[in-house]
């Protein structure tokens, strides 16, 4: 042990799953909604603590452990933040492979939510297993599509959950052109299934509910956003990730271990995720994907959060199309990664996780050791937005029995695909009537 080293004990009395556990509290007085609380216990803050002192190169693998559903998002935000710090740009086939990996995660994560978590809400089933009895072909399609998403993650990332092939500067190993072509037929099947998914979910009945959201997403000049671009909103915001902290603020509320995020200007909630990406980047879709969206009943902007299930299905279709494009254009890179020279610097990145913007900031010393880290996941950013939706949506159901009220409120929360919804029955509803 080196001189001056100290024994460090990090004690965690309550280790929640990354998917988290949540609760909802509604207070109703004289048939008026008096209080709404979404309670979340989410542990990414701990990760920021134990990233300190670790090598810059460890950030992708450490942060991937934050989520079993969207580990690629954490890896992508980490590598881009590090490369931003060290002044490195990764382009060409390596950039395309990152996009391919992200597409796999979008397909897997979105399909899980569409079929297994959200569709039962609209069709009146307790769970996807119950739904499968009456919708066998649909559920089989969902399972197959999710599996293909996972296969893409394994193909590029080495394994589906917490991929191991991502490194700052690129990958440890890259596929051959022939290996890429070998995936084409599978992705063509996935594209067909994705189109059928759009057609299926667009037939659901949706509650009439819209909000004048402040949508925030990454925006790239030429492509639907995943890894790269500026952070923009429909209210005129247009910044780089390096300016994120100037415009967004984390605040602590007693009911949640995850910090609430608000816009600094007015402390208002904002909306990240598929609806925001879609509204701010519709014209980045290929024309035929735009046409499918229109045929599914979507406009260029969709403000009904319940219809986010259709937007997710459009993003799955787009991800399949994008994979086919990447496969066809692929040229094997000369090296699987670009060499890094660490230096004392701070790096920033925001990428589009399936659930919305995932912001990473790291400060490193001259050896590339992490001095400070800040990670803001999309579910944290949407927390206040979810509560705001409940404030507006729930009052129309106050005369309904508690079970009906609970059903609608849970569905409103699941519109956001919060990580805590990974457990089927994550909500404990306390209704206090007086």
């Amino acid at each position, binding site marked *: 042990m080196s001189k001056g080293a100290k024994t460090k004990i990090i004690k965690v009395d309550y280790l929640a799953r990354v998917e988290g556990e949540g609760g909802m509290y509604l207070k109703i007085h004289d048939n008026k909604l008096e209080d709404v609380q979404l309670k979340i216990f989410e542990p990414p803050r701990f990760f920021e603590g134990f990233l300190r002192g670790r090598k810059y190169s460890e950030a992708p693998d450490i942060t991937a452990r934050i989520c079993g559903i969207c580990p690629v998002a954490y890896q992508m935000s980490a590598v881009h933040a590090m490369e931003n710090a060290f002044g490195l740009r990764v382009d060409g086939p390596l950039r395309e492979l990152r996009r391919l990996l992200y597409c796999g995660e979008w397909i897997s994560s979105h399909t899980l939510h569409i079929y297994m978590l959200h569709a039962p809400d609209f069709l009146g089933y307790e769970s996807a297993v119950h739904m499968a009895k009456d919708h066998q072909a649909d559920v089989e399609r969902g399972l197959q599509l999710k*599996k293909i998403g996972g296969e893409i993650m394994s193909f590029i990332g080495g394994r589906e959950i917490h991929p191991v092939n991502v490194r700052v500067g690129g990958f440890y190993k890259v596929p051959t052109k022939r290996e890429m072509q070998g995936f084409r037929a599978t992705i063509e099947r996935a594209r067909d299934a994705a189109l059928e998914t759009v057609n299926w979910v667009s037939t659901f009945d949706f509650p009439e509910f819209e909000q004048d959201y402040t949508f925030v997403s990454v925006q790239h000049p030429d492509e639907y956003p995943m890894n790269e671009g500026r952070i923009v909103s429909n209210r005129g915001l247009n910044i780089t990730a390096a300016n994120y902290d100037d415009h967004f603020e984390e605040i602590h509320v007693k009911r949640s271990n995850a910090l609430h995020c608000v816009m600094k200007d007015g402390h208002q909630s904002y909306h990240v995720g598929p609806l925001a990406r879609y509204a701010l980047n519709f014209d980045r879709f290929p024309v035929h994907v735009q046409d499918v969206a229109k045929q599914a009943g979507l406009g260029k902007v969709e403000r009904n959060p319940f219809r986010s299930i259709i937007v997710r299905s459009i993003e799955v279709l787009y991800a399949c199309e994008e994979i086919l494009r990447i496969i066809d254009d692929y040229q094997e890179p000369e090296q699987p990664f670009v060499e890094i020279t660490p230096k004392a610097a701070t790096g920033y990145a925001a990428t589009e996780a399936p659930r919305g913007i995932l912001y990473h900031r790291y400060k490193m010393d001259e050896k590339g050791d992490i001095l400070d880290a800040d990670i803001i996941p999309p579910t944290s950013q949407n927390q206040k937005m979810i509560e705001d939706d409940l404030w507006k949506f729930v009052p129309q159901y106050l005369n309904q029995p508690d079970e009906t009220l609970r059903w609608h409120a849970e569905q409103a929360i699941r519109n956001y695909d919060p990580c805590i919804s990974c457990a089927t029955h994550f909500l404990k509803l306390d209704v206090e009537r007086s």
Partner: protein
Amino acid sequence: MKAKTLVIGIGNRFRGDDALGCILADKIQTLALPDVEVITHSGEPASLIDLWQDRMSVILIDAVSSCAEAGTIHYIDMQKRGLPDSFRSYSTHAFGIAEAIEFARVLNKLPPKIVFYGIEGKSFAATEILSPEITAALEDVETRIMQDIKETIDA
């Protein structure tokens, strides 16, 4: 041609007793039994269901945490019933084996024989070391699984 029997070890090799499904799969793999395929798996439902197709017998091995005594062997004939709720909430897989089994049951994709060996874990901390109680139970579990495999081969 698929092997008649499929043994699937599930778990995380780096989370203490959660590794035992993988460890037992490794041990059975080394025996190179005829018409028996042995794999480890993340628990992803769709690929599990695919793997079960055209098999006579599937044996799933995983760690569980249901407040029983460490090392307790839970044997469940999945053709007759699903995983109890007490196992589900402690799985490391938010959407995994339990759902795969129930989906397969509803979709008529369960193999003729499918059994689950759940071994009660004690510690799921970040380590590659098993608890002594689990180490002590491994031989017994392996013996029982081997008996299961033999019955399938004989049938």
